[in-house]
Structure formats: C-alpha cells, structure tokens
C-alpha cells in the first residue's frame, strides 16, 4: 500500500550536493507498525517527509495506495495528504490559539466535511483519547502527554490509512511516553498503518518491523518485538 522504488533525494546548494536518500526502496503493507531508526543525518526525516508528501523527491517511483504520486499537482498532493495520511510530531504542533476541539477540526475543515460530520468525528476521537471533558481547553492548559494525545486525535479524525509519527514521545517523560505508545499500539490494532521514526530502541522494538537507516539507505529490515516474540 506504500511502495518506494529507488527513491533518491538530493539537496543542492551552489557548492554542495547532499544525498539524503540514495536509491531508497521500501514497502509497507496494510496494518503494519514500522519503526524507523538510525543515526542523525541518516535520512529518517527526509523519508518521512517524502512518505507524507511534504517533500518531493529527485528520482525513483513512489506509489501511495496504488497511486503514483510523482507528477501530482499541489492541490492533488494536499488532498491525498489530507485523506490518507495523519501526522504526529515530536513537538505536538498544536495551534496555540485554538482549543482542543478546533485543533482536531483543522484537517477536517480542509476535507470539506459538513459541520455535523466534523462534530461527530471530533467528539469520537477526543473521547477515544480520554480528553472529552477538555474539548475547550487551550493547548497551554494541557500537559505534554495530553497535548500529544490531542495531536494523535487530530491525526485520526480524518480516518487516514497511514499514521506518520516523527519522534512522537521525544518530548515526553517515560510515563507519558508509555501512555502515548500504548495509544499508538491500540490504534494500530484497530487497523491503521503506522510508520514511526524514533531514537529510542525500546520503543522501536515494540513495532512489528524495524527499519534501520544509514546514509540514506535501508541498513537493515528486521521484525520488531511482536514478530520476534511470535516466531520464538
């Protein structure tokens, strides 16, 4: 359902060419929970940005849900991103002046849903993350863990096929990180495909598959804790 073949990404300045991805090939199946690890500069974020249609690539083929995304217009890419992909960021990236309800509402607005449909979806996901009583709180009135839960609710409200998470627990203490991780696992069990970039090996192991990136390439592609435990 997500397939990259020989995808390259080269950043060019006047004097330097930086190869962020080198003939990167990778595929994701429906329902996967993939962790992506690797040292800084290995291309993890570039991969995530390309996968999330936030960045264009220099060469190769990328198919998302069977659709070649190479020559799509900005409007088409935006629509595809809105309908099929949910993002979770390390810094939560909530809009400070909007309350929880309105933050979750943002992608639904661009989707063009009617007010009643938006309300139904928002209330469902806010209840799911356990913040139903705080729908009209501003982000600054929430803890870091709660803010990340709101970000997850926002990512899920549009019922995307993929969830792309960039260090989703990076700014949280261990207890909150565990709570967020459990929520992601629950979401994955419900059928949403998750690709998670992380530095933390313990979290990476909890994914079904772990991709180790090195120098813009896939260094290794191993089953995570789930599969390792199952095969043992």
């Amino acid at each position, binding site marked *: 359902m997500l397939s990259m073949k020989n995808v390259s990404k080269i950043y060019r300045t006047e004097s330097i060419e930086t190869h962020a991805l080198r003939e990167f090939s990778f595929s994701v199946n429906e329902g996967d929970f993939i962790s992506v690890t690797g040292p800084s500069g290995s291309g993890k*974020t570039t991969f995530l*940005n390309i996968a*999330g249609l*936030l*960045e264009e690539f220099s060469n190769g083929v990328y198919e998302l849900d069977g659709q070649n995304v190479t020559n799509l217009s*900005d*409007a088409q890419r*935006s*629509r595809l*991103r*809105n*309908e099929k992909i949910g*993002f979770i*960021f*390390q*810094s939560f*990236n909530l*809009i400070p*002046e*909007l309350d929880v309800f309105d933050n979750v509402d*943002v*992608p639904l*607005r*661009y*989707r063009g849903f009617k007010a009643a449909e938006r309300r139904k979806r928002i209330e469902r996901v806010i209840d799911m993350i356990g913040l139903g009583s705080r729908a009209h709180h501003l982000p600054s009135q929430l803890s870091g863990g709660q803010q990340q839960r709101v970000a997850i609710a*926002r990512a899920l409200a*549009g019922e995307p096929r993929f969830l792309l998470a*960039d260090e989703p627990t990076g700014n949280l203490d261990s207890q909150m990180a565990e709570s967020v991780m459990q929520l992601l696992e629950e979401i994955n069990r419900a059928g949403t495909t998750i690709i998670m970039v992380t530095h933390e090996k313990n979290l990476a192991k909890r994914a079904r598959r772990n991709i180790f990136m090195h120098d813009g390439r896939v260094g290794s592609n191993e089953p995570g804790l789930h599969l390792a435990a199952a095969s043992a």
Partner: protein
Amino acid sequence: MFRYYAKLGLLSIRRNPVLSALMVAAIATGIGACMTIVNIDYVMSGNPIPHRSELLYHVQLDSWDPYEAAEEPNEPPDQLTYIDGKALLEAGKARRQVLSYRTGRVIQPEDDAQLPFQVSSLSTTADFFQMFDTPFLYGSGWDKSDDDGMAYVVVLSRAISEQLFADEDPVGRNVVMNGDTYRVTGVLDTWQPTPKFYDVSNDSFGEIEEVFFPFSISIAKEVDSYGNTNCWKPTGETGWQAFINSECVWMQLWVELHGDEEREEYKAFLNAYVESQKAAGRFPRPMNNRLYDVMQWMQNREVVEDDVQVLLGLAVLFLLVCLLNTIGLLLAKIMRRSGDIGLRRALGASRRAIFSQYIVEAGLIGIAGGIAGIGMTMLGLQGIKLLYGEFEFVERLVRLDWVMIATAIVLAVISALGAALYPTWRACGIHPASQLKSL
C-alpha cells in the same frame, strides 16, 4: 470556508495585537489622507443638478476683441453683453431661458427698530425656478407675465424669510428694497447646489443669493452688477445706458433644450444671430459660439482647481507609501507564522487554501483600517476647516456622505488586499517540511 478563515483572521489579529494595530494604523493614515482630498474633489466635482444637467445649456458668444481671445487659446467670454443676452432672451427660441446677473439690495425691515441691511441678490428671469428645480418652502417663483409687466415681485431665501417674518408664511406680504416695495411670491427651502453651477463666473462655491427679483426691474432701476464685468473696449460715454449698450460682458444666459435636435436648432439660431450682428458691425472674431451642458461647463471652467488634482495625486502617493509599510508589516507577520502555515499544509491545506486564509485576514485588517481611516478623514476635514474656516464655502466641502464612507471602506479593503498579495504569495511558497521541525 470564508467564515472559518474570518475566524482565523480575527484570532491572528488578537494574537499579534501590536503588529495588527500598526497595519491598521498604516492603512488608516493612508486612507485618511487620500479620502480627505478625494472627498473635497468629490464634493467640488459632483453634479449639482443630476436630474436636469443634460437639459441645461450655458450660452457663450464670441463678441470679443478681434486681436485677442477672451481666454487662450480661443475661448469666447464666459458671460454675455446685455445687448446679446436681452436679444436671445426675447427671441425665446429655447423651451425655457434664464438671464441673470449678480447684484445686491438693501432691505428695509417693517419694524423701524431694525436697521436696514444688505442682501446678496440675483437679478433673474421667471424660468430660473423651474429650470433649476429650486425647492420652495412657501409659494413659488413669479410668472413670465411678471417679467414682461415689470412687476415688483421677489423670492426670498429661507434665512432671509425667517429673519424678516420668523416662521410665518410671507407669500403676498411686502418687502421694501432700496425704497421700492416688492411682493413676496415664494420662499426657497434649503437649497445649495455645489458647485453653484448657474454662476461659476463669480463664485463657484459661494452661497446662493438671499433675494431673487426680476431682471426687467433691475435693468429699469439701473441696478449695478456686483459680479465680474469684463470689457474689451471702452464704453465710450459714461452712465447706465452707455454701459448696457457696451461690449462689456456681465450676465449669464442658460437655456433648456431637450435632445440633439433642439440643441442643433438652437445652435443654428445662435449662428444666425451672430451673422446678423456681424452684418451690423459687431462680432469681429470668427464664429465661435458654445453651448455647454452643466457638467461640460463645470469642466470648461475648471471648477475643480488644478491644485486639488495635484493634492489628490500626492495623497494617492502617500497612500502607496503607507501600503508599502503595510506590505512590510504583513510580511513580518506572515513569516512569523511560517510554522502554522507549514503545519496547515501538512494537515491538508493546499496553497490556495493558505492564500485564501491570509487574504481574508488582510481583508479584515483592511476593514478595520477603513473604519479607522474614516475617523482620520474626519480629522483631516476638520483640519482643513480649521485652516480655511474663514471661507464660507469650505463648510460645504468638508462634509462626509455615505458614498464617501463606503468608498473609504472599499478603498481600504482593496488597498489591504493589494498589499497582501506579495506576503500571501510568499506564505504559499513556505515549504511545510522545513517548518515542522522548528515548531
């Protein structure tokens, strides 16, 4: 989505109150300066009688010096001689015609305790009131029979009527002017055409006269003109008869003509009249008659001074400078929101959606700038009133009507949208991936 973008715009304005206030102030200052001058230009160049302006024609005949035009390059004099005015009036070739000149009278109140006082007056003909559609508080104008019969009749302005008769209807009562008793036929209601189109040769923005009385009486009583009088050759003998038989121009003729056919017929009549006068040894210059309708006449007389046009240009330049400042402020504001833009792009906003969001926000700032700009315009107009308050006409130029208020808002919104184009275009170009890590 418009309501959503408007809500986001208001939130953004609240989030950056200082920057937003600076933008509103920049737009308001530009709009205030621009609209102050636009308003003056608008009042000065407005159509003073829109429902009849295309039916009323000012008559000019070139009876001037053979060696020098009355006005360069080849303009005929702006007024007529008595000989020509009277001849054209008596010919009666137009539907209606008004021959008039500005003068002054002294009123002696009935109450001996009151001192006589001078009033500005217009010596005119019966058609004046119907042709120029003057509003009446009481009564009406006089008839052509009163002109022909040299009746001592008078129409008063509202102010003079109130001064002489308080709130009573004075129609039928008498007013003594310069020793003669006139019967009041009507009192004008408030009427102030701006510009005062029927006599731009004297005072384009002056107040209307206080008293109107028959032309035939003023000639018979040898009432001097208080208006401009221009002569291209000496009158010869002295005295009233010599003056009215001279080539001096001092009165205005207006005629009412409906349609091209009537206008062409009247032009032919004027040409024939001038030919007959040439045969009699007058009109040494080539044929150069003019018939201008009201707005053409205002334009020909350059009722709106060149200075106002120059000021208008400077005011527009000032508005542009303010808009350049607004562009800078808007750019700073939008660039500060790069993270927000990147996030929205990641969540599915197209470039078009981002463009719309920030254009709507700019529109809201424009509306706020327009409202504040109206306040600045009022201040500007009050400033002009303070500086030039000694001139009576200034009072009428510093009014702000609904058209100008709406214009200020529309101009402010258009200006803000124009100023927002570049910053918004930059916003659309923000790369989402580069912003998300920095949030």
